[in-house]
């Protein structure tokens, strides 16, 4: 067995069998299954019952007016006169005053808020038309009262002239909900996997170094081979976890009719969805490799486990920066200057490029340049990590900066 494979398999198997891996995977799978049954859980706790009829007690004129308005609203609730009895899916509306309108709505169960809104809208319309009639306003006056102001915008922008019906301020490109979900899932998963696995590989490298076992290891295998085997194994561990999540999602779709929830939410693919999914996958893997290489390098700087978090701080801060830029720009002008510039900064690229992939105006070339930037950065990071690792792995001198200084000298 090659030495690379020995380290690779040892790291992979020990991480896969670790309690932390098993527990975190189980929790996420559980969350996926709970999410797939979200509607059923909501229904379970929701004591409100769908109303089928409103029974009106009182004024005949009001009854017919209210019935007409409710029918016009297409509320799915029938309006009937109250005859002293009330079914389980019926509510009782008693009129106390007509001018101004005062009513009491009585129900034995909770009424879904959507239906309450419809009843309130209908009552509002009845009151408005009664007021108009009471004031003896003509139809024209009534229309003028209800008229909305006509505002036209005259804003010069780079993308359009003022007279082409230019967009209103704050009007942003429409975001496809499915693409937004794919983007959010990618960026959030990437962020958490990077933070989690960067810390794990940092710990792994630091622990080997501080427990001194590294001296036995590097007397058998070149440090660079050892480091690459460790990084590769950690990437495979994270991909294994992702694969399990993916399997759980597929299982949830099959078992729990998850597809209907997606349909209900109106998530539909558009022409950018495939591009987004493919590039998100690529950036996820490349981002992971880049951050893990850097974390391994930082882990090899330290001589005491207490210094680990401090050593990993740059990785955490950069991942957080990329994450925030991506998350806070999705609903704004997606291709603003910050997004454009940061998408070419290697440590932000994995987070920000998927955001640009959502935008149909972003060319394939731009997205490919992002991939090339990442691949070149990974190569540089691995070379740097390997050369630093080789020099720092046997050093037991104090702080990170002392180590850096010493490595630079050698």
């Amino acid at each position: 067995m090659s030495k690379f494979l020995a380290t690779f398999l040892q790291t992979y198997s020990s991480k896969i069998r670790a309690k932390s891996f098993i527990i975190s995977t189980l929790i996420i799978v559980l969350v996926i299954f709970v999410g797939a049954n979200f509607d059923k859980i909501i229904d379970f706790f929701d004591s409100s019952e769908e109303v089928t009829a409103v029974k009106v007690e009182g004024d005949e004129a009001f009854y017919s007016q209210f019935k007409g308005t409710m029918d016009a609203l297409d509320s799915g609730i029938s309006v009937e006169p109250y005859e002293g009895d009330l079914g389980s899916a019926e509510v009782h509306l008693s009129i106390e005053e007509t001018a101004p309108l005062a009513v009491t709505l009585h129900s034995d169960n909770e009424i879904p808020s959507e239906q309450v809104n419809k009843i309130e809208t209908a009552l509002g319309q009845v009151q408005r038309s009664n007021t108009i009639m009471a004031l003896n306003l003509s139809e024209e006056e009534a229309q003028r009262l209800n008229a909305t102001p006509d505002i036209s915008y005259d804003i010069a922008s780079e993308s359009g002239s003022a007279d082409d019906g230019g967009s209103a301020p704050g009007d942003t490109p429409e975001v496809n909900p499915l693409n937004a979900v794919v983007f959010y899932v990618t960026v959030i998963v990437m962020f958490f996997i990077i933070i989690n696995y960067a810390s794990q590989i940092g710990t792994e490298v630091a622990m080997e170094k501080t427990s001194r076992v590294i001296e036995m290891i590097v007397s058998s295998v070149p440090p660079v081979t050892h480091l690459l085997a460790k990084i590769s194994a950690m990437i495979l561990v994270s991909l294994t976890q992702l694969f399990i999540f993916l399997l759980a999602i597929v299982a949830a779709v099959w078992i729990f009719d998850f597809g209907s929830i997606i349909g209900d939410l109106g998530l539909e693919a558009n022409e950018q969805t495939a591009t987004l999914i493919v590039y998100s996958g690529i950036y996820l893997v490349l981002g992971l490799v880049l951050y893990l290489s850097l974390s391994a390098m930082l882990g090899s700087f330290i001589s005491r486990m207490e210094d680990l978090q401090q050593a990993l701080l740059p990785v955490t801060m950069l991942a957080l920066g990329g994450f925030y830029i991506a998350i806070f720009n999705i609903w704004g002008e997606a291709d603003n200057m910050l997004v454009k510039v940061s998408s070419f900064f290697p440590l932000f690229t994995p987070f920000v490029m998927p955001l640009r992939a959502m935008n149909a105006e972003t060319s394939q070339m731009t997205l490919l340049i992002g991939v090339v930037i990442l691949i070149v950065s990974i190569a540089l990071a691995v070379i740097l990590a390997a050369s630093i690792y080789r020099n720092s792995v046997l050093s037991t001198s104090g702080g990170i900066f002392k180590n850096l200084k010493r490595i630079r000298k050698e």
Partner: protein
Amino acid sequence: MTLELSGLSKSFNGQTAVDHIDLNVPTGSMYGFLGGNGAGKTTTFRMILGLLQPSEGHITYNGEKIDYNVTNQIGYLPEERGLHPKLKVDEQIRYLGQLKGMSKQEVDKRLDEWLERFEVPENRTKRIEKLSKGNQQKIQLIASIIHDPKLIILDEPFSGLDPVNVEILKNAVKELNSRGATIIFSTHRMEHVEELCESMCILNKGRQVVSGRIDEIRKDFGQKEIIIEGDHDISFLKDMPGVIDMKQIRNRYILKIEDESYAESIFNEIVKLGYFKRFQVNEPSINDIFISKVGYGI
């Protein structure tokens, strides 16, 4: 077919840790490295293994430079002990054995033999962190010799062990040597070098103070030790020519003389006093040589 160190030096930030060492370790020999803390023993070992690049000089093993192509033939027990604390003993040895090119089956078979030999077969499936320091040390020694290396470098292998375990480990080292392995080890314990090694080297502040076959070093050293046991007062001997030092422990006197030629005149002096139970001329101990060359004891 030897390990050869020529003009080997190493400096860190302008400070010399190892200063022009020249050594020749014959195949199949047992070679002792003696020296106080900071003498340069571990740095020398790390250079032999290729973990540190020499500032000057070169190292060859069987005429070839040592690199990762020959590390499968080398076993190394570092001074700073450490294993993966979360791994079980068999997992740890399997991993380190595989790094030396062994198959899992080979490791398992030899691991059973070594665990029996070190009288710890019950530890096979225990986590490293659960073992006592001494048992961890045994496991680490097994890890460094499981692949049956031709060259074994042991950096203070007996430190921190109780006398029983020192004996077990010493016997294992002797057996490995009798099977043809070349063994280099460093120690602070002179008696281990005297007992185990044919050749040795004393380092002091990175410099090679003395090296070669132990019997020749003793011979060349010149000084001898005389032990005299009897009921007569012989304290006057300390003023005789050739006597460097004299110690008295009850009715036993230990004299150091410049060379063996002074022994006869001392003998002639004491027989005048009558009966003595013992008059014995000894070779100098390694400890005497060390103190004489380095200027202090360890």
